């Protein structure tokens, strides 16, 4: 589904990614771990099409297409979803309106009919249950005045609405208490199928107790320095990152 080859990227004058290669297949969950400043979030943002980075070499192929040649909205319409580390507030625009606009854009791009507001509210009913959110949430402005936990849940709710093929969760666990973590992870797990894939970017192993990865990669200084199975995450939790970085 996703194939990243020798990806180099800069922000301003600074090279942040220094040759990343990663293959993600349908049905897989990959965890990307690593210390602060290692380039984890940058990688997530580049896959989603953030305009703040320049790819200097390498390639990203998504379902056989050159992902880097696609505009951010085209990537979203093709099923790439990023759950933001810091979800953005849009005051005055209700969640319901925002979600429906997004959902309909994605449907339109895929040759499907748009849903009207009433059909959409019906559709939202099930989605809300998935993340244990109340309907009142739909009538609040997008992320405005939300607590940290609500914002993260709201991201997973959008993921549930858009049903992406490739979901990237960028530190979705940071700032979540244990109950919220359980709810968020439950939502993500419920959305897992054989057809879609998930990349979980995180500092901590904690989230991976709930969302169990097939592969764990350690990112340091812009490179993947170690890959392994889910047991690697446990080892990292116990021993920290230093030994991996020294070994690399």
């Amino acid at each position: 589904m996703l194939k990243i080859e020798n990806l180099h990227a800069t922000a301003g004058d600074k090279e942040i990614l220094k040759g990343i290669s990663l293959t993600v297949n349908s049905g897989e969950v990959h965890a990307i771990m690593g210390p602060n400043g290692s380039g984890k979030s940058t990688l997530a943002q580049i896959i989603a099409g953030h305009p703040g980075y320049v790819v200097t070499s390498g390639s990203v192929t998504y379902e056989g297409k050159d992902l880097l040649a696609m505009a951010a909205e085209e990537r979203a319409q093709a099923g790439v979803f990023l759950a933001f580390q810091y979800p953005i507030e849009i005051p005055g625009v209700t969640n319901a309106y925002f979600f429906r606009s997004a959902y309909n854009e994605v449907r339109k791009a895929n040759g499907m009919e748009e849903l009207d507001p009433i059909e959409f509210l019906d559709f939202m009913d099930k989605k809300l249950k998935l993340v244990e959110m109340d309907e009142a949430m739909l009538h609040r402005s997008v992320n405005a005045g939300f607590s940290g936990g609500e914002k993260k849940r709201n991201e997973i709710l959008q993921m549930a609405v858009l049903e992406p093929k490739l979901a990237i969760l960028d530190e979705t666990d940071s700032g979540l208490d244990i109950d919220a973590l359980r709810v968020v992870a439950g939502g993500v797990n419920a959305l897992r199928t054989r057809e879609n894939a998930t990349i979980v970017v995180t500092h901590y192993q904690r989230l991976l107790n709930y969302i169990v990865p097939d592969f764990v990669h350690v990112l340091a200084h812009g490179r993947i320095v170690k890959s392994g199975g889910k047991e690697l995450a446990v080892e990292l939790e116990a021993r920290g990152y230093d030994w991996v970085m020294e070994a690399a």
Partner: protein
Amino acid sequence: MSSSIESLVNKEYQYGFVTDVESDTIAPGLTEDTVRLISSKKDEPEWLLEWRLKAFRRWQAMTEPHWSNLKYEPIDYQAQRYYSAPKSITPLQSLDQVDPELLRAYDKLGISLSEQKHLAGVAVDAIFDSVSVGTTMKAELSKYGVVFCSFTEAVHNHPELIKKYLGSVVPYSDNFFAALNSAVFSDGSFCYVPKGVRCPIELSTYFRINAANTGQFERTLIVADEGAYVSYLEGCTAPKRDTHQLHAAVVELVALDNATVKYSTVQNWYAGDKDGVGGIYNFVTKRGKAHTNSKISWTQVETGSAITWKYPSVILQGDNSTGEFYSVAVVNNMQQADTGTKMIHIGKNTKSTIISKGISAGKGQNSYRGRVKMLPKASGSRNYTQCDSMLIGNQCGAHTFPYIEVANNSSTTEHEASTSKIGEDQIFYCKQRGLSAEHAISLIVSGFCREVFKELPMEFALEAQQLLGITLEGSVG
């Protein structure tokens, strides 16, 4: 990154066309003779000419105000033409006598004046340059005793009302532009809603400037008698021309005891091009006087004009009266707006609300200027002001000038202000959910303006939202 924010600019102004009609246009210049000529063209009674002349003499003794945060080339008042009217219009004609070319012009603007096709639920007075082309649904309104007609017609048919209320809210001596308007005003709309009548439909005036090098100086007077209700809409457009044109209007609202007047404007005068060539200079005095238990509400969406100088205000004369001001002002490219309101609390327990949303894009400069004044006798009065600015890009500006004066110790005022910026992050967030940049901006901006849009009548709310999308289209990339 920020260069992409500047990149998407400017959909063509849709209403920039010129209508080819033969006009009776007077020579440029302004003297007492000009005032007399305008008055005689309208076949006015002597008392009105006298009033104009007093205004003119007063104006001559005044100087153009420069306290606003606006920069523009000096206006040569002697180079302006003060009257232009299509020759085919004869005073007081009926709608079926209107020149088809003029009807077509309004059709192009999306306003049908032919009685069969007009928008259901809205009566329209159409002002073309210096005269009214016609007013729709007059017969329907007269069943309720509602008078809605051009100002010229009102002078002839309802002189007692005009005499009583003309200048009663904005005296001719009020300010430089109001004095100028009082001397040379050519037409405008008049509305009177009798005691206890709720005007059953929206009333609206559509102002169109067509002639070149000609100013438009219209005057609107709306009187809601005791317990009456009226909702009035105003729309404005002008052709694209590369010289600046002057628009100096006066609007007076009177809400007698227990009455409500709701006045909404969607101002879309030609704003000039990207480099600030051409566009309307809009210097407008709008004010309402609210008597006991009455309410005056201004809602404005200002997207046009090269220069906007406008402060729709309410004098809260009667006890328990209410004044409201809801505003969205957008500047893009080289546009400048200095706009806001004055709420003058005179009566006891009077209440005012000010919600101002300023949006600046391109190199536009947007200033909110507001005065809240509580007089010694206005005990128990309250004001709430909220002033939000949104910046799009790095070259525009937002400025806030609030003045609050409280002369008693039982009044309350609240002022909240915020400035935000549409950033790449907000747009990226929307794009990541599948929305285009244009869609993202219109979504973010309409969210920002929601509190004001919900005050607009239905027909206008949609139009305003679309207009905003067009005005800002291309201002973010």
